[in-house]
C-alpha cells in the first residue's frame, strides 16, 4: 500500500515538474518573440527617420522621378499607422523596393553620386535596410521555434488550455524568398 502510494506521488511530482518546465520554456520563447518584434520596430523607426533626409538630398536632382519619391513617402506613413504585422510587413517591403529604385536611379546622376551627404546617407540606409531584414529574419526564426514548441504533441494540449496562440511570421518580399540548405 505504502509502495503504491509512493509510486503515485513520484509520478505526480514528475508530471508537475514537466509541466512547470514546459510552461517556463513557452514563456521564455514568448518573451523572445516579443523582444525580437520590438527589435524590428527599432530598425523600422530608424529607417523612417532617415528617409526625410534622403528625400531632401535627392529632391533637387531627381525632378523626373517624382512618383518614386511619392511612393516612399506614402509607404513611410503607412508603416507608422499599421496596426498588425501583416500591414507593417507590406509597407516595409514597399519602402525597401522604393529605396532600391532610388539608389538605382541615382546612378544616372553623377553630381548626386559625388555628394558627400548622399554617400553617407546611402551607407546609413543600406546598413539600416540590412538590419531591417536581419531583425525580421531573427523574428521569424524565433516565431518558428515558438510555433513548433506549442504545436507538437503533447505540448499542444497544454498550450490550448493556457490559450497560447500561434504567432504570425513577418513575411519577406517575394524577391527575397530563397532558401539555403545547411548541411555538415
Amino acid at each position, binding site marked *: 500500500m505504502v509502495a503504491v502510494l509512493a509510486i503515485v506521488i513520484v509520478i505526480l511530482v514528475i508530471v508537475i515538474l514537466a509541466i512547470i518546465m514546459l510552461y517556463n520554456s513557452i514563456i521564455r520563447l514568448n518573451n*523572445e518573440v516579443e523582444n*525580437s518584434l520590438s*527589435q524590428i520596430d527599432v*530598425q523600422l523607426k530608424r529607417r523612417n527617420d532617415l528617409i526625410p533626409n534622403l528625400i531632401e538630398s535627392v529632391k533637387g536632382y531627381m525632378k523626373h522621378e517624382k512618383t518614386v519619391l511619392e511612393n516612399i513617402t506614402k509607404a513611410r506613413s503607412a508603416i507608422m499607422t499599421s496596426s498588425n504585422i501583416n500591414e507593417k510587413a507590406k509597407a516595409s517591403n514597399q519602402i525597401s523596393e522604393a529605396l532600391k529604385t532610388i539608389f538605382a536611379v541615382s546612378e544616372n546622376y553623377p553630381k548626386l553620386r559625388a555628394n558627400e551627404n548622399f554617400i*553617407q546617407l546611402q*551607407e*546609413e540606409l*543600406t*546598413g*539600416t535596410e*540590412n*538590419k531591417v531584414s*536581419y*531583425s525580421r*529574419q*531573427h523574428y521569424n*526564426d*524565433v516565431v518558428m*521555434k515558438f510555433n513548433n514548441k506549442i504545436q507538437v504533441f503533447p505540448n499542444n494540449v497544454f498550450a490550448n488550455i493556457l490559450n497560447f496562440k500561434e504567432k504570425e511570421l513577418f513575411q519577406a518580399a517575394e524577391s527575397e524568398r*530563397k532558401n*539555403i*540548405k*545547411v*548541411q*555538415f
Partner: protein
Amino acid sequence: MSQTMFQQIRGNKIKSILILFLFIIIIGFLGGFIGFIYNNVYIGLILAILAAILYSLIMYFSGKSMILTMTGARQVTKQEYPHLYHAVEGLSIAAGIPTPKAYVIDDSALNAFATGRNHNDSIVVVTTGLLNKLNRQELEGVIAHELSHIKNYDIRVMMLTAVLVGITVLLSDFLLRSVIYGRRDSKGSHPALIIVGLVLALLTPIIGELIKLAVSRKREYLADASGASLTRYPEGLASALEKISKDPDPLVDKANKATAHLFISTPFRKRTGFVTNLFSTHPSIEVRIKKLREM
C-alpha cells in the same frame, strides 16, 4: 539546428572547464617536480596549483585584453569604418546576441577573429587588409562566421586555449632549457632533473594535441555553416575565403603559436611537412569553400 547549437554551447562550456582543469593539473605536476628537486614535493605542488588557479582567474577576466595586446588590435569608431559597424550590428541582430565591439589590426594580411568570455563581453577583430579588399557580401560572410563563434561559446574555449597554452608552452620551454643548459653547480645533477627534462619534452606535443582537441576542424565548418544561415548567402563567405587563400601575404605580423587558432584562416606562411600538418589548427580552405558552395 537550434538543438545542435544548444548541444554545442553546452559542450563548449564543459570543454572550457576541462581546459582550466587540465592546465591546473599540468602546472601542479611541474610544481611537484620542481619541489621534488628541492626535496619538498608538497610545497611545490601546492604553490604551483595556487599559482595556476590565480593565473586562470586573472586570465579568464583579462584574457581578452591580453589577446588584443598580443595581436595589436585597436577599437574603431563608426566614422572610421561605417560598413564594418553596420555588418557587425546587423548580423548580431540576426544572431540574436548583443552587438560585439569592433576592432581592427593594422595589417595588410586578410584575416579576422573573435574573442571574449561570453556574449556580453565579446569583440570581433578584422585586419585593415580585409576591410580594404573584401566587398560588402564577403565582409558580412566573414563577420557572420565570427559571430557564430561568439554565439556558440567557441570564443571562450579559444580564448582559454590561447592564454593557457601560451603560458604552458613558454614555461615548459623555459624549464626544458634550464634543465639542459643550466649550470650544474653545488647541487649537482639530480637524477630527477633528467626525468623532468623528459616529462617536459613530452609535454609540448601533448599541448599540441590539446590545441587540436579544443580547436577541432569541425568547429570551423560549423561556424561556416551557421554563419551562412545568418547571411542566407553562403557565396559571400566562400568568395571571401577564396580571396583570403589567394592572398600572397597571409602573414599577420603579430600572430604567434598561442593565438594562431583564433583566426579565420591560419596566420602563418604555408609550409608543408609532417610537423606542420600535425599541429595544423585549420582545415583546408579549399574544402571549406567547396562545402559552402554545396549549400
